[in-house]
């Protein structure tokens, strides 16, 4: 879990420049990430799919999910 979280934390500032310094924790709602919207969420999806080699379902990234739920999905797909 911590390893996946660390990878996401590393990628977030480049995908969401406005999130520089924003603390990402498992309870963070995707909607609360600065600059999160339907366009930036596509970049997040591409980042996750390329980094972890999996397919992320669109509904997981609709904003109401938490980082923890995304991490759980990635770990289940391992």
């Amino acid at each position, binding site marked *: 879990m911590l390893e996946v979280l660390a990878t996401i934390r590393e990628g977030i500032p480049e995908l969401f*420049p406005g999130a520089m310094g924003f603390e990402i924790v498992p309870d963070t709602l995707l909607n609360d990430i600065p600059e999160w*919207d*339907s366009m*930036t969420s*596509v970049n997040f999806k*591409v980042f996750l*799919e390329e980094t972890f080699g999996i397919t992320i379902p*669109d509904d997981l990234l609709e904003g109401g999910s938490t980082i923890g739920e995304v991490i759980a999905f990635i770990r289940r797909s391992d």
Partner: protein
Amino acid sequence: MPNEQLTHFPPSSIKLIAEKTGILSRRVASDAECTSDLAIQAAHRCLQKVNFPAGRIQAIVLSTSSPDRMQPATATRVQHKLGAVNAFAFDINSVCSGSTFGICMADALIKSGKFENVLFIASEMYSKILYKKDFCTFPLFGDGAGAILFQAGNSDRGVCHSCLRTDGSSGDAICVPGGGTMLPFEKMTRPRMAYFKMNGTAVFEFAADKGTEIVLQLLKEAGAALEEIDWFISHQANINIIETIASRLGVPKEKFVVNLNRYANTASASVLVALDEAISGNMIREGDLVVTSAFGGGLSWGANLIRI
């Protein structure tokens, strides 16, 4: 290149491009071309239309935020390839506002009384400065160029007034972070730093606010009324921005020239490309009063009142 050919993005995301921006397609230059090549084509066509020999051009002002190289000025290659041997040439970079800034600069050179003619060109090739995997920028831009020949004369045709503004406090909202002296190549930690980036949400609000404000300011300073304006050409970035500006001005959106659906955002070239299409298609006619306006990196924004 239509949206459907952007196959390196998830298929489910493609419909978002049209929904969020109105963009359906864009032009993409070949690998072998650079920004000056588009500028030269636009300049040639402009000079041919008025049968003006390149050797008579006194000055070339080139607006670009995607230059051939960091130096020398892209305009100098354009001058050479055009055979404009009697001209001096230089670049200006006001990012997407470059059309309005360049129109003002070219007009000012003429009005200074020192020059009989000035060729203003806006040319952009964003396909080569965008990070191809960035969904927030790559689908939104296209390559393009336009040109206007300014000549001294006594007619009432030409630029009536210009209004330009900048606010450097938000310079990071639209930028290419690396490759300059602030972040030299050897200090870049990720390749992405060499590419264009934009905070879309912040830019939308800025564009809608300033894109409206500058038109009102322009008309106030020029002593003109909104009702007198035949056509509005706003920077072709996003149909939702244009419709917001039209609504806030209380002007029917049909009075706004729109071609971003076919060319996407061609940065500083967008206003010139739209102006040329509208004139060529007999939408805008001689004698019409036109407001051009643009907004972009810097942040910068500007507008011109032009009698065609």
